[in-house]
């Protein structure tokens, strides 16, 4: 009986710690949303106003009026999805090759891919920028999209996934006389769906949230993404936190929704990246 009590106390303590941590995690979201509905004067009072007097969408309207926020959305959506589609095509093929095929250079080429993953991204940026300039693609969506098609991380993640798949199916198909590409396309690809979803999520998330590259290649408002657009919003409204919070919430909302829908895939994808293969 006494032991049971001790165990329950332990559980309670665990819950208390986890709940305190959760409040820390969730409070900024709560505060962002509440502030976005306040008036400016409600944010300059002490003690602070916790709940706004009335929930009005004025600040959201201001965000759309002072900046081409709709265009930011369109740009970010187009960029994220085009990057992801291209990246998945390129990466699944390469990942399958690295995971399963025997060819001279497999080890060394995969080592090069891993090295690209470990190198700080800033080392690529100046020449990438020069390439975009040379191709007359500065200040355009393709400038945001093209480098994203080639992702060492995505190849690494998908290779990890292909290595977890049973090899017997492939062996059987090979004995049946199927060609390598056909095995990849009609047998492995359908099996790799969870891995592909995980890699796509990472890709969308990364392009959605990336700040530095859009900031560098695209200068005009019409070609900006949400992340870079927020910098302009902050620059324009400085301490008008209700408007800034409205913009921030608008920028993160789609990812929050995707996360709520694909939570399981997010978690599995991250876990996959950490497993040793």
């Amino acid at each position: 009986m006494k032991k049971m009590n001790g165990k329950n106390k332990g559980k309670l303590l665990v819950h208390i710690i986890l709940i305190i941590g959760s409040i820390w995690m969730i409070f900024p979201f709560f505060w962002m949303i509440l502030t976005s509905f306040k008036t400016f004067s409600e944010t300059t009072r002490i003690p602070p106003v916790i709940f706004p007097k009335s929930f009005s969408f004025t600040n959201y309207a201001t965000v759309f009026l002072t900046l081409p926020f709709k265009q930011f959305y369109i740009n970010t959506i187009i960029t994220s999805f085009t990057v992801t589609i291209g990246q998945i095509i390129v990466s699944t093929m390469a990942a399958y090759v690295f995971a399963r095929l025997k060819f001279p250079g497999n080890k060394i080429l995969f080592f090069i891919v891993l090295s690209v993953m470990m190198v700080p991204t800033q080392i690529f940026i100046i020449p990438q920028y020069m390439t975009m300039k040379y191709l007359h693609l500065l200040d355009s969506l393709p400038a945001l999209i093209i480098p994203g098609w080639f992702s060492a991380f995505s190849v690494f993640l998908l290779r990890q996934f292909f290595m977890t798949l049973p090899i017997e199916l492939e062996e059987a198909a090979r004995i049946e006389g199927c060609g390598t590409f056909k095995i990849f396309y009609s047998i492995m690809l359908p099996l790799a769906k969870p891995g592909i979803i995980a890699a796509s999520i990472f890709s969308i998330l990364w392009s959605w949230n990336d700040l530095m590259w859009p900031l560098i290649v695209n200068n005009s408002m019409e070609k900006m993404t949400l992340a870079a657009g927020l910098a302009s919003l902050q620059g324009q409204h400085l301490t008008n936190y209700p408007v800034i919070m409205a913009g921030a919430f608008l920028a993160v909302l789609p990812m929050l929704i995707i996360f709520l829908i694909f939570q399981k895939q997010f978690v599995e994808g991250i876990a996959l990246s950490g497993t040793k293969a």
Partner: protein
Amino acid sequence: MKTQPVAKIIKRKIKKYHSQEVVCAYLMLFPLLFGLSVFYIYPIFRTIFFSFTKWGAFGSYKITGIGNYVKLLHDHDMLLALKNTFIYTGLSVPLGLSAALIIAALLNSKIKGLSIYRALYFLPAITMPSAVAMVWNWIYNGDYGILNYCLSFFGIKGLGWVSDPSVAMYSLILVSVWGGIGISMIIFLAGLQGIPATYYEAASIDGAGAIKKFFKVTLPLLTPTIFFSLITSLIGSLQLFDLVFMMIRPGNLAMVNTQSIVYLFYRNAFVLNDKGYGAAISVVLLVITMIVTAIQFTFQKKWVNYD
């Protein structure tokens, strides 16, 4: 009947490569190899070359040898950036990883509501850093921020968390820990769930308590996972940029104590348009990253357990 496929497999193993398979492998690799070469591998060498050049107007440049590196040695901002980046990395990585490890261990104790907790702790990790920075700026605000208000209940006098040069860096570190727990926690949780229950049963028979089990069973078996997270977090934090760029506005006195290597890279290469100097800064970052990673791989033998 059953021996036939086996015989075929053995035959394939003897003949090392299948020509059809090799051709197919290279064809399927081609898009990746082409793209990586153009956008990632060639740029590494190009940046190293650029680091030995001086850029004039309209994108013309001339080779100046080690001029940029000599300038770096005397650049007070670079010295500060190195110091700031090391403070940031040195604190945010161990703090973030230990917090994530504790949360993961707690979540692994067969507790109710695992998926809800997991979602809550993971939420910050998927949120756009520029938006995160703006929200925390508001929470940290010296005049009307909610943090100062909360602290006033404990009789603590508030301060400008991102405008006071002596605390701004620690405020950024706290945001980065907040945002980084989710990813490491999930990796740790996957690692924890991979530890066979029999190990714990054996430890229980030996009379080990929960804390002892954690240090004698969990931690040693988790070292490969910790090592992986350590490497990726270190590489990531050395590239601190988004938080500084969004939270410390130009003119903020705290810039001195928060500007990072990558912030200086961005400013020199794309604001001041001194791409040669910017390239030299990124080469320094590359070298630092390589040294840090090499040290990790050298010392892993001492503490990482591979079974």
